[in-house]
């Protein structure tokens, strides 16, 4: 899947990735890679501008967390982020179902 295809859905993916609990950038990237089985061919560096954007918009909150002498920035969903995730998730389902209904019928 190209970066272009992914772009519109990146925010949904990131919000979903931190839903289970706070995570740092590398963990989020790992999750995206392993869950998609490597389908998302996105430079991991581009996650950071997207994470920062979500934080500025109030969907995510972040703090430094120190474990074993390693300082990492950890992101977590805010209440607003929860709500946005739920809405986007619903929209995505709707969209995927509709696309499937059309494309599946043609196949």
């Amino acid at each position, binding site marked *: 899947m190209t970066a272009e295809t992914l772009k519109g859905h990146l925010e949904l993916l990131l919000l979903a990735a931190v839903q289970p609990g706070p995570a*740092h*950038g*590398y963990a989020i*990237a*790992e999750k995206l890679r392993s869950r998609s089985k490597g389908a998302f061919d996105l*430079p*991991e*560096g*581009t996650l*950071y*501008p997207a994470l*920062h954007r979500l934080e500025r918009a109030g969907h995510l909150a972040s703090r430094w967390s120190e474990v*074993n*002498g*390693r*300082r*990492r*920035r950890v992101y977590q969903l805010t209440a607003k982020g929860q709500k946005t995730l739920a809405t986007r998730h619903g929209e995505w389902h709707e969209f995927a179902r509709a696309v499937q209904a059309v494309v599946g019928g043609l196949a």
Partner: protein
Amino acid sequence: MTDHAGRDVGRASGSIDAYLRQLERELRQGGYADARVMEEVREHLVDAVDDGLGRGLSAEDAEREAFERFGPPEAIAAHLIPGRHPMINRFVTLTRDVVWPHRWWVLTPTVVTAILTSVLSYYYLPTRYRSESIIEIVSPQPVPAPLQSPAADQARARFQTISQTILNRSRLEWIIKDFGLYGAEQAQVPISNAVLQMRRDIAVEFLAGDARTENAVGGFKVSFESSNPTLALKITERLASLFVEENLRQREGQATGATQFLDAEIADLRRRLIELETSVEELRARNGRGQVSQADLIPYEVLRDRYKTLLIRREEYRSVANQERRELGEQFKVAEAARLPERPLGPSRLGVTVTGALMGLGVGLVVVGVKRRTRAA
């Protein structure tokens, strides 16, 4: 720190440092710097390399894979740099990273100097008011188009002569004493200083064109500035009337100058006439009742006729001169009377406060810059 296999964990290798330097350079070109993102990238790469090593990759391969997955520095920089002009990015970065952490060092002098300048200016920079009056130089009859330019020149010359007279020292001293200006009354200020100060507060300006009165060939504006609006009005009124009076007086002076010659001759004739009259009277007395020779009377009559003629001529001349003065000379007319200034001229209180705040801001920024430099050194 080492992991179970004895490898270094959580420490950036030389190539990670090189990658970070490259990324930083790319960001700086866009006027951007972000310490937090640099730290995040570093931790990310360290994690990625550790991960690769954990999967049994060689250090070299682990690093290559980490960089590949992360993306080339220039592409990542392009994502990170906000889409603005590098100068703006630089400004934002400096404000965020340098000024914001020291905001109290900047805000305190800004607020303090703003308050200080506004309080001090209240005492040392009183509010100024200006009242002005427009006087037009009016020709007695319509000026034909080809003569308009010379007429305007003449009007300007007249204005200049008269304003020199008005602004001379003794005239101003009068006004200063009349109104007790500049503390001259209390002898707080030497009168010569008061005169200089008054010249600064008076403004006279010739205005070409834009006449309101019919047949105006020019005009000028007189204004006076003071911290007291009523005083500004009164002095402006006084100055305007001085201009009008002085113009009249100077033209009258010209007319009287022309009759002075006649006056002298008439006085001389009158004296001789009285002398002759006395001698004729004496002759009469000596020769008895009414017996005076025609020969003695003729010179007296000649003189008397001449005296009469001169008196008539002088009268005619005077009335012509009067006529001329009234009708032919240019007149100064107040086209716009002085008014009580409603709004102060300045200084703008807001402007003073903002200037003070900016000075404080400047001082604060310099202090922060010096602090940063000394810490860097």
